[in-house]
């Protein structure tokens, strides 16, 4: 146990490092900050709610930098796309926060917040899951027919629609190989930023699918590019929380020490898999987070009288982190076995890269 003078509590250091590690793996792999997982965990450890959000947001900024450095090395970042989105994202976050404040004045912020979370996450889960399953089946067929499979395969027609919007100026994103109107990129930034600001999260789980399905970036590039956004949005969030005195830097330090290792593992793990594998993990994280939000919504709607709902929500959130980590690590392990010609389950080969050189 360690006494945190700013937060005013005693909390176990090892658990903070472990939370940082697990959320680092997940965040580095699917390009999210992981705020929807970390905040409840910190509350369970005894941190006050406002401080849990502040610590989480500040650690996300640091972890985002660590992941960005590794994704840059792997060539997963399209800087043109990332920097074009930043302004839109910042504007969106501010709009989202103001919308939240407005709902707070009406006295219904918690319910509206949870309902919005559930709807947004469930819709994203459904679309990602259906599309990824289609891509997985197609990859299986290609594998069976002996056709060469690429790093990425996505079956959505949405990117074509958005890339055909002829609004000048048109951007050429060389790394992502995307030609799209700058206004589409800015609009994606504003909308995803507004949702993130309103829900009080970094917004990675909204931005990654948006970059894949609206802008048309490959999943790996969407992950890397989104992490650049997270550095900016996390840094801005950290500044705002710090100004309110909601950040304990010592707790942040412990979490970053775990997140550093986790972010390395998660980022490097992306080089072992194809795009649909990342989208599968993203969709599972979305459905588990949706279930947690539904339980919390039920808890709030029942007048906070059914304590077991809150308990289940916390358990689900903590279980989600462990489940996603194990899933990612097992994919890497299967990829290694597949490369060596050893047995792997049937669903694995279309999702992992067969050769070591990327």
């Amino acid at each position, binding site marked *: 146990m360690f006494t945190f003078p700013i937060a005013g509590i005693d909390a176990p250091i090892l658990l903070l490092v472990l939370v940082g590690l697990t959320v680092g793996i997940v965040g580095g792999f699917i390009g999210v900050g992981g705020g929807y997982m970390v905040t409840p965990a910190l509350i369970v450890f005894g941190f006050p709610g406002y401080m849990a959000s502040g610590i989480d947001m500040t650690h996300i900024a*640091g972890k985002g930098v660590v992941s960005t450095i590794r994704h840059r090395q792997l*060539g997963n970042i399209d800087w043109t796309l990332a920097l074009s989105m930043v302004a839109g994202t910042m504007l969106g976050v501010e709009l989202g926060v103001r919308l939240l404040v407005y709902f707070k004045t009406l006295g219904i912020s918690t319910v509206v917040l949870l309902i919005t979370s559930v709807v947004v996450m469930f819709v994203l889960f459904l679309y990602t899951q259906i599309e990824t399953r289609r891509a997985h089946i197609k990859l299986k067929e290609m594998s069976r027919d002996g056709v060469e499979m690429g790093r990425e395969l996505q079956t959505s027609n949405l990117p074509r629609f958005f890339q055909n919007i002829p609004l000048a100026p048109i951007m050429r994103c060389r790394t992502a190989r995307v030609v799209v109107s700058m206004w589409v990129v800015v609009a994606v930034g504003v909308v995803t930023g507004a949702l993130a600001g309103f829900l009080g999260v970094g917004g990675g789980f909204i931005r990654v699918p948006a970059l894949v399905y609206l802008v048309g970036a490959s999943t790996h590039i969407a992950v890397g590019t989104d992490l650049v956004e997270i550095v900016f949005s996390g840094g801005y969030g950290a500044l705002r929380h*710090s100004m309110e005195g909601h950040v304990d830097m010592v707790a942040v330090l412990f979490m970053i020490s775990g997140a550093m290792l986790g972010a390395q593992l998660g980022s490097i793990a992306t080089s072992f898999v194809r795009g649909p594998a990342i989208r599968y993990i993203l969709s599972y994280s979305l459905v588990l987070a949706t279930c947690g939000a539904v339980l919390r919504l039920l808890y709030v709607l029942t007048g906070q009288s059914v304590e077991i709902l809150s308990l289940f929500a916390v358990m689900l959130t903590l279980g989600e982190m462990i489940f996603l980590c194990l899933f990612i690590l097992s994919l890497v392990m299967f990829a290694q076995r597949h490369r060596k010609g050893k047995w792997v389950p049937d669903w694995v080969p279309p999702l992992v890269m067969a050769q070591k050189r990327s």
Partner: protein
Amino acid sequence: MAGPSKLRARIKFVFWTAMSVICVGIVVRSHVTGQMASWYYYTAALDGYAVNAKAFMHATAESPAFLEIGPFSRLDGLQAVRVGKGDRLPANANGIIPVEVLEAGKRASLVGDQIRVTIPWQMQEAKGFKYKDSFMHKGIQTNPWAAVWNVVMVIAIGLSLGFMAEGLTDALGMRFEKISHFQGH
């Protein structure tokens, strides 16, 4: 090795390890010396009494805590200092008992030249989760430079740890080349 030479990778690793140690050292030093806490608990954001909320966390209605009011420059245990909005907080203060709370008399009340605390904390809810809400952190204003310092430090730590890890894998000869996103295997 695909990228830089091993010597360059080793220099990179050593340099960024040193930077990481310096950054982490700065944070730890400011924690140990109490500078971090004094930045956080900087001024009063409302009228009330500056207290060290940890000193009376175990008070109850049956066994209340009595805080001695005085012009202390440092709070040692059960002490309180009258502060107005914008006043610098005394050392060791980590929260304010607002005047309104004392007037309501439910959680704390003025008894002569003492403050009687009966409910030092209560359960609150945030984002559907319950947490223990105490007087700690109530009504305090953080030094704005502390916020800038936090962000600068967290980015500096992220940068140094990130490049340190990159230097380490390069020095160990682990190959992390750029992914060919548009070629099949």
